[in-house]
């Protein structure tokens, strides 16, 4: 056990933070704004840092343990018949990777939030939610079974809801509570995926009689190798068919949580929450839990791929469906990002797009590449969000500065609108520098983190045979182009040119409390590529593998193979896992780099060259088909098409099926009336006439009999005395009878 005995602390620290901030933090802040905020914020951050320290300890513990997975059972949770679920933490390379990302990035964002949330009346509530989120996210990644994962899954969904709606009382000019609506939208969209998750778990348990990861995977592999059918009571199904259903449901769950087509609509709206939340939950961690789920379940996906079962109707297998969904999302969201003017909305669509990259990667079997991109994306997207937060903060500061001079009651200034910015590189140099790094990393410029991870995905897609991989490769390449383009557009609009609003002129750099975490993240965004640095040629890789010394290359791959490659143990080569190239593919790399640079330059120097002199200028793309394509987002489709349809269906289901048929007819007519009839029979005939008659009859009989007997009870003492005397005489006679006669 040793160092793994510390694992429960991973959950305990955030929980302490929740209790502190939830119970007493508010008192601190109310007592003294200045020091109270420090206490509340730093206590929460300290708990996050402590959890990070534990995660680091787990990391070294695994290293000392030869990377063998360890299970820390805290207690038995459910134990009913066959159904056994422990509350246990799985410490393996995959979960520790996620823990490090969650707690590491989480800690930085906690610290940043101390500065960002300064002055908010609900300061300690914010940190309560943030710590609660960490708690649930760590349950999600550390559980050793699907049920615990689901607890975390729901918990982070709840925290997401709470944090998106953190300023739930804010209303827009129409009087709509936009933030609360956005929170509800996120919650409801996630429910769709959660329903799929519940179905998937039910099916998993039905098939494998367990929900714990390792037993499920072991019996899946065993069933696959022996070719047994899966029996569901009266009917049976092939393992491949059942797993296709399970993995397709997992995809639906992941689509909800990781914002994929068609459930991505909630994520852009989720930007209504405070920016640290956007960075932590809606970019770096929570939204990646869908990718984690698929990576964790890689054995099931690979069995489906190997058994070559296709989904009826569309004729593609479920892993391929995952890949195509991801790729489509990447392109689609990348295009929508062109059309956004809100600085955070651009990043939101960018996040959706990058999540599409990851989903596409894991769908293609490039689990390490997916995780790699997940990690680097956590770094630079957190950086970008926090940077945008810094920009918004600066803009608000400038606006605040202005409104001191002259009060403008009808000012509809939006500090997030990029059209009002411009030229901020002079006002906010630190923010500009780190933002630049983040943008280039996201765009995939050598040698920043994003280049390596994105390139690994592209290389995987480009080198494996099959039309799916080819299609995905081209879609992702287009998406990568889009990424670079909209980031160039954003940089141009935000930091270059001239200030287009007085607020931008008076913007100021944010406090060190906010910029220092940004610098740390910028460093990570630069160096993140080292995590899984590829070889430069095939010969270098072969030499290294013969020498069994890979140096710093492919660190993440060798680290994660202890969690992911388990399925490759299966013999006889029946499994053809797609192979990720371990050395750099120069053709792919060169194409993507050129496209990225071209896109960046095109955005800055061609399309938007002379644009953005004034705030009300039109976007030059506004008249092109790209705009129309992107302006017609799924959102509109939802509002105009699906929601009315859904409402009508819900009305039909609710009023006709549920109320009229199920409730009025089945329940009222059939069940209730039958029951009432029987109850009437029981109460009138059986009870009132039968049982009551019997009981009352017995009572009547007793009364009638006692009526005679009570005549003897005169109440006169003399009567009683006489009867005693009679008894005495009788006894005397009895005794004396033999004597006398």
């Amino acid at each position, binding site marked *: 056990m040793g160092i793994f005995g510390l694992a429960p602390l991973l959950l305990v620290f955030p929980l302490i933070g929740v209790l502190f901030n939830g119970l007493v933090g508010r008192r601190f802040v109310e007592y003294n704004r200045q020091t109270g905020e420090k206490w509340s914020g730093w206590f929460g951050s300290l708990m996050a840092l402590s959890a990070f320290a534990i995660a680091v300890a787990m990391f070294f513990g695994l290293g000392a343990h030869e990377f063998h997975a360890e299970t820390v059972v805290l207690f038995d949770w459910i134990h009913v018949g066959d159904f056994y679920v422990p509350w246990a933490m799985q410490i393996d390379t995959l979960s520790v990777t996620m823990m490090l990302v969650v707690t590491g990035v989480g800690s930085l964002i906690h610290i940043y939030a101390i500065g960002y949330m300064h002055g908010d009346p609900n300061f300690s509530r914010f940190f309560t939610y943030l710590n609660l989120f960490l708690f649930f996210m760590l349950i999600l990644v550390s559980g050793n079974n699907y049920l615990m994962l689901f607890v975390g899954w729901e918990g982070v969904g709840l925290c997401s809801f709470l944090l998106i709606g953190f300023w739930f009382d804010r209303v827009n000019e129409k009087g709509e509570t936009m933030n609360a609506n956005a929170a509800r939208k996120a919650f409801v969209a996630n429910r769709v995926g959660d329903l799929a998750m519940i179905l998937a778990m039910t099916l998993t348990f039905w098939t494998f009689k367990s929900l714990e990861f390792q037993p499920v995977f072991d019996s899946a592999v065993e069933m696959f190798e022996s070719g047994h059918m899966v029996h569901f009571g009266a009917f049976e199904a092939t393992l491949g068919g059942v797993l296709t259903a399970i993995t397709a449901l997992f995809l639906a769950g992941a689509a909800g949580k990781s914002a994929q087509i068609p459930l991505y609509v909630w994520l852009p709206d989720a930007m209504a929450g405070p920016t640290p939340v956007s960075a932590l939950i809606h970019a770096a961690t929570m939204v990646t839990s869908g990718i984690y789920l698929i990576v964790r379940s890689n054995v099931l996906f690979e069995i489906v791929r190997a058994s070559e079962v296709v989904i009826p109707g569309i004729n593609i297998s479920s892993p391929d469906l995952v890949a195509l969904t991801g790729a489509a999302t990447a392109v689609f969201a990348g295009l929508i990002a062109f059309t956004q003017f809100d600085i955070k909305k651009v990043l939101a669509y960018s996040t959706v797009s990058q999540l599409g990259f990851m989903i596409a990667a894991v769908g293609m079997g490039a689990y390490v590449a997916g995780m790699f991109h997940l990690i680097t994306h956590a770094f630079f997207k957190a950086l970008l969000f926090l940077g945008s937060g810094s920009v918004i903060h600066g803009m608000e500061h400038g606006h605040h500065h202005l409104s001191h001079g002259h009060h403008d009651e009808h000012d509809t200034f939006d500090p997030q609108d990029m059209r009002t910015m411009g030229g901020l590189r002079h006002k906010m140099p630190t923010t500009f520098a780190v933002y630049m790094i983040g943008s280039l990393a996201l765009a995939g410029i050598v040698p920043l983190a994003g280049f390596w991870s994105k390139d690994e995905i592209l290389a995987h897609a480009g080198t494996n045979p099959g039309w799916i991989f080819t299609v995905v490769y081209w879609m992702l390449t287009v998406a990568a182009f889009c990424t670079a383009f909209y980031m160039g557009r954003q940089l141009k609009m935000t930091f270059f040119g001239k200030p287009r609003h007085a607020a931008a002129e008076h913007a100021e750099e944010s406090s060190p409390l906010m910029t220092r975490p940004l610098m740390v993240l910028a460093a990570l965004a630069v160096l993140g590529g080292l995590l899984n640095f590829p070889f430069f040629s095939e010969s270098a890789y072969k030499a290294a593998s013969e020498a069994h010394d890979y140096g710093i290359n492919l660190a993440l791959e060798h680290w994660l193979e202890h969690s992911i490659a388990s399925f490759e143990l299966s013999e006889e080569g029946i499994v053809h896992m797609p192979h990720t190239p371990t050395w750099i593919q120069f053709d792919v790399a060169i194409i993507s780099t050129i496209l990225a640079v071209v896109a960046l330059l095109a955005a800055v120097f061609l399309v938007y060259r002379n644009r953005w002199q004034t705030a009300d200028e039109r976007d030059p793309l506004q008249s092109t088909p790209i705009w129309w394509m992107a302006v017609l987002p799924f959102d509109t489709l939802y509002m105009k098409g699906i929601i009315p349809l859904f409402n009508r269906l819900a009305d039909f289901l609710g009023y006709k099926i549920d109320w009229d048929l199920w409730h009025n007819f089945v329940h009222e007519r059939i069940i209730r009336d039958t029951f009432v009839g029987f109850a009437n029979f029981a109460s009138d005939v059986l009870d009132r006439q039968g049982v009551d008659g019997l009981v009352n009859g017995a009572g009547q009989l007793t009364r009638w009999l006692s009526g005679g007997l009570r005549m003897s*009870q005169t109440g006169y003492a*003399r009567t009683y*005395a006489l009867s005693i005397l009679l008894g005495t005489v009788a006894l005397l006679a009895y005794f004396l009878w033999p004597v006398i006669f």
Partner: protein
Amino acid sequence: MELTIDWYIGLSAILFSLGALGVLTRRNAIIVFMSIEMMLNAANLAFVAFARHLGDLDGQVLVFFVITVAAAEVAVGLALIVTIFRSKKSINIDEINLMKG
């Protein structure tokens, strides 16, 4: 004529019967009560006679207890009579039939 225990038992029986007669015939609750005392005395006499006859002291001990209990009984009984008299202004037991079923 030899004075045997039979004589004492006979006397005891006569007194007991007279007491019983009193209980059954008199209407004054106090007289009834006194008759009961007389019945107790008749029993006591039989006890002492038997004790003498058997040469055993236990009979006398029992009489002692009977007298004690009788004292307690008289105290409670008279208190009851006083209470009844207070509420009904009568101690005629023919007028008292609260226990009528």
